[in-house]
């Protein structure tokens, strides 16, 4: 890599034809990297597209859409719109819109916004699903499913299901299950000693 410990600040568009290793990238508009990214902080106002892996030591913050062709590793991930990656590992993931991963996402804390959508398994210690959001499988220590949200399979030590939630598959819990009125579960919830192993 040729750009080391560099700080990049661009008002509009940053286009990198190759891989970069930098300290910080701050771009007001769009960033395209035809390679991999290794950085401490990346803050993009609009859209981020990385063809290969992205390893962000501290914070990845994208106002719009982030598309990572390979693996995304980061301290904190905050995306206002949509996030796409092959797989995502982070301490904290917070996405306002849609997340799609091929292999899943793993974090200490995970939060999807109101009416958001998650495609791919969620593996996290604490999971909070926003009102009206739609997700697939969840593996969590602590889970809150927001009002009128829906999940496929739920595997949690503790789960709180708010009113109008739907669980289309199985719901297994270890310690505690609480739910409000009008919760729809298509199979009976089960208290188990041990949860199934998460996929990642």
């Amino acid at each position, binding site marked *: 890599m040729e750009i080391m410990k560099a700080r990049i600040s*661009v008002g509009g568009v*940053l286009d990198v034809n190759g891989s970069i290793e930098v300290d910080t990238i701050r771009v007001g508009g769009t960033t395209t990297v035809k390679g991999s990214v290794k950085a401490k902080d990346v803050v993009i106002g609009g859209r981020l597209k990385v063809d290969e892996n992205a390893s962000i030591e501290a914070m990845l913050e994208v106002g719009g859409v982030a598309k990572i062709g390979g693996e995304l590793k980061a301290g904190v991930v905050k995306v206002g719109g949509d996030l796409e990656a092959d797989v995502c590992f982070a301490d904290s993931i917070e996405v306002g819109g849609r997340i799609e991963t091929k292999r899943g996402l793993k974090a200490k804390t995970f939060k999807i916004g109101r009416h958001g959508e998650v495609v791919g398994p969620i593996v996290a210690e604490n999971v909070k699903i926003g009102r009206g959001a739609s997700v697939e499988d969840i593996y969590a220590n602590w889970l809150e499913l927001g009002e009128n949200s829906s999940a496929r399979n739920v595997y949690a030590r503790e789960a709180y299901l708010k009113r109008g939630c739907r669980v289309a598959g199985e719901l297994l819990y270890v310690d505690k299950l609480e739910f409000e009125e009008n919760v729809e579960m298509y199979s009976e919830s089960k208290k188990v000693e041990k949860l199934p192993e998460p996929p990642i």
Partner: protein
Amino acid sequence: MRVEPRKTVEIDVVEEDLFIGRNSTIKAKTGEIIVVKGDVEFEGDCNILSSLHAKSLSLENRGRINVHGDLIVEKFISLEDGELTVSGRLEAEDVDVGKIVRVGKGLKCLDISVGGVLESEGDVDAESISIGGEASVRGNVKGTRFSVGGTLTVEGLTELERLDVGGTAKINGGKITNISVGGVFESTGKLVFEKLSVGGVAKLKVVE
């Protein structure tokens, strides 16, 4: 010594100051170099059909100075309302030209300030380069600070501590500590930097 306006004069060595009237032509009497041990002052346009070595160069009024060879000046070149074209090398301590500087084979100085355009077919080596309008360099650039109000194009490698361009900068890689560009910045070659700040669009090519 004084050269009258609209005259063609052959000179070898001048031990004192040289005043050259407007629209005159000077050339070396023998060999290819004119040596002036004092200061050279131009009244207006002048064609120099040889290389010129002098202590300093200045222009009284508006004018175009053409040097068909090298221009080597010990101290300063001051053409506040002028244009300077050198087909060979240009060397001086301090260069201050109001309009245009064109150099055929490279430029070496401590400070150069050009109000309009700098064109160099060869390398540029200067501590401080300040160009008001447009700068294009076909060779390498080496220095401390390069400031361009409008557009910069460098075809060779660029090695600087600081690059400031108001409009568009297109370089072919190198090593620049701090880069600040108001509009568009593009590096088509391997670039090492510490800070890049661009108002509009930045295009980087990274060679692994």
